[in-house]
């Protein structure tokens, strides 16, 4: 019934002839199964992503015409993969969803890929950054980034443009961290450099006391250090320790992935982080009309306290991809046609122009070199340089991490 009422309202809204409100006979409701961490350690990220999905829906639902999209949210909890797979199966079998979306952690995507293949459901990755994931199922499309897409150009850039003639990588010691290390190392060596040291800085389960790790780096006196930690609560203590150990004064430049300057926790870093250079695919401070509109809409919806971050924009774009599928197929979802419609799809995202690589089904996007600066008494991110249209280098170079 709600669909019928809805089509009447819409017709009125568009100022069309409204003499008759015909029941929308061909209206389709597309069910999207959303698998994201809504509790546990990454609950804040999951919440941001769900907010982004809903914001896009709210802004664009008029474009769907008679059709509609419903989100069926499920909590994937901790990143084991097992919960995500069970939920994916339930969504397919019981809820009969047309599309799958979400998958924060690579293990979640790895475990669920088979279900997507067997059930023939398009699976849109909102985060899960291990490069080779898209090779696990012909129905996977990624709207986030890969670790290599950021860290490989970052390694090159550090040597070629930032003058980092000696470099030490500090990384959270789990699969994504080791991936960052491999990618930075590959990029840095490609440019002609040689890593001085690589320091694993504890696992992802607890925020460590960073002192011994950074002290070790400080005592080796590199020109630059490159750091990867999971975005969020790892960063404020990192900034404090960097400052406590006077590393800036010792002339050790801080470089990192966009995770350390994540917009959500940026203000928590304090002045300790001014001058840090990070390499990433999105910041809320990006000075483009598309982004300014996005940020304004976000703040209007969710308050001024917390800006959207790269997780938000990843989910926002994932929802744009869902809309593209629903509009192209007019609500009749067929997995192969849906994937075909996304191959080579171009979209004007808040993060800049993006495209889905027709061959790998992975995103092609700009990578930004950014600096943390102080502006109007708050921390802000200044874009120093743009590396345009970066394609996942891991698959392009056939690096060992992607040979799986």
């Amino acid at each position, binding site marked *: 019934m709600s669909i019928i009422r809805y089509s009447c309202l819409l017709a009125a809204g568009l100022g069309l002839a409204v003499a008759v409100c015909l029941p929308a006979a061909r209206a389709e409701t597309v069910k999207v199964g959303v698998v994201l961490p809504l509790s546990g*350690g990454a*609950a*804040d990220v999951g*919440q941001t992503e769900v907010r982004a999905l809903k914001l896009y829906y709210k802004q664009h639902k008029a474009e769907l015409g008679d059709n509609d999209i419903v989100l069926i949210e499920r909590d994937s909890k901790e990143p084991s993969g097992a919960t995500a797979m069970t939920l994916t199966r339930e969504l397919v079998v019981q809820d009969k969803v047309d599309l799958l979306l979400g998958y924060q952690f690579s293990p979640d995507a790895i475990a669920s890929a088979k279900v997507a293949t067997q059930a023939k459901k398009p699976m849109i990755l909102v985060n899960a950054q291990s490069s080779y994931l898209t090779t696990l199922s012909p129905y996977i499309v990624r709207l986030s980034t890969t670790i290599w897409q950021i860290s490989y150009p970052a390694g090159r850039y550090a040597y070629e443009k930032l003058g980092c003639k000696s470099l030490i990588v500090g990384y959270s*010691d789990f699969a994504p961290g080791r991936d960052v290390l491999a990618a930075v190392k590959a990029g840095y060596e490609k440019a002609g450099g040689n890593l001085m040291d690589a*320091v*694993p*800085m*504890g*696992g992802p*389960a*607890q*925020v*460590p*006391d960073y*002192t*011994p*790790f950074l*002290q*070790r780096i400080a*005592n080796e006196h590199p020109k630059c250090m490159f750091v990867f930690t999971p975005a*969020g*609560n*790892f*960063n*404020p*203590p990192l900034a*404090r320790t960097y400052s*406590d*150990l*006077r590393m800036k004064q010792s002339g050790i430049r801080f470089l990192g992935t966009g995770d350390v300057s994540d917009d*959500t*926790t940026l203000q*928590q870093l*304090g002045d300790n982080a001014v001058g840090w250079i990070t390499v990433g695919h999105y910041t809320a401070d990006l000075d483009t009309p598309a982004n300014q509109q996005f940020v304004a809409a976000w703040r209007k919806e969710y308050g001024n306290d*917390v800006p959207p971050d790269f997780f938000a924009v990843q989910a926002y774009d994932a929802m744009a991809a869902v809309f593209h599928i629903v509009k192209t197929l007019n609500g009749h979802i067929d997995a192969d046609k849906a994937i075909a419609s996304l191959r080579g799809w171009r979209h004007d995202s808040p993060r800049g122009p993006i495209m889905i690589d027709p061959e790998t089904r992975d995103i092609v996007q700009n990578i930004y070199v950014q600096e943390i600066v102080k502006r109007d008494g708050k921390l802000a991110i200044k874009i120093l340089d743009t590396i345009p249209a970066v394609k996942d280098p891991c698959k392009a170079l056939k690096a060992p991490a992607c040979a799986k």
Partner: protein
Amino acid sequence: MSPSLHAALSILFDGLGYAMILFTMSVGLSVTMGLMGVVNLAHGAFAMLGGYVAMVVTTRLGLPFLPALALASLTVLAASVPVERTLYQRIYRRPELQQMLLTIGLTMILMALTTFAFGPAPVSLPLPDFLNGQIILAGRGFPVYRAFIVLIGVTLFIVLRLGLERTMLGAKIRAAVDNPAMAEAAGIDTRWLFTLTFALGTALAALGGALAVNVVGLTPRFALEYLVVLLAVISMGGLGTVTGTFVASLVIGTIENAGRYLFPAGGAFFIYAAVVLVLLYRPAGLYGRS
């Protein structure tokens, strides 16, 4: 200074700093779990609450850092009394499994409430200027805040040790823990004594939590993140001894720091190896009574 001497000094100084952070975080657990014999897995949750109270007091009420520390301890202390009277008093003589279930359940509830009130994102606790910066010791810088934590840790150790071992109250607490029936017969109100001891333990937890914010950050997850390490400290030190907790903090803090500095790929291996070794030869812990 030669690089290896420099490294050795780094390990020693930073290890001491880290050890005292562990001590301030675990000494409350040493009181509730070690002294009172409750498997108090909610310790981390009380520590987390302390951190959040300190955050609210400084950033929203605008009070300075030091009064905020005191207020955090007092608020959590006040809140702990009804919790002890209604929940903990039921489990003192129950099997450990039931104690674990109740306290871990309490932890989950407190984490959910904190997430509801403050959100899951990390919060910060600004430090006053005099606690930022560095002091120069033996030719190298040492963060003032670490020195401050060392000072608090050592003070707590001395006060607690003297308080528990040299005062009448301490004697009553030890009597009530060892033999409640006999203590009651001697005219000690063990129920209130337990309430008091528990309140002291949670107040210390809150203080440790508030102090730890600037070292390891604060989110609702804090309640569980450090629990395992703290339990390792308590079991290595031996139940019911503040001295044991102090020494175990020093051992674990220094070993973990040295391990991270010299062999960062070893992860948490070194501390758990140390705990296993100690417990192999002294199952009751370094200072525990077997």
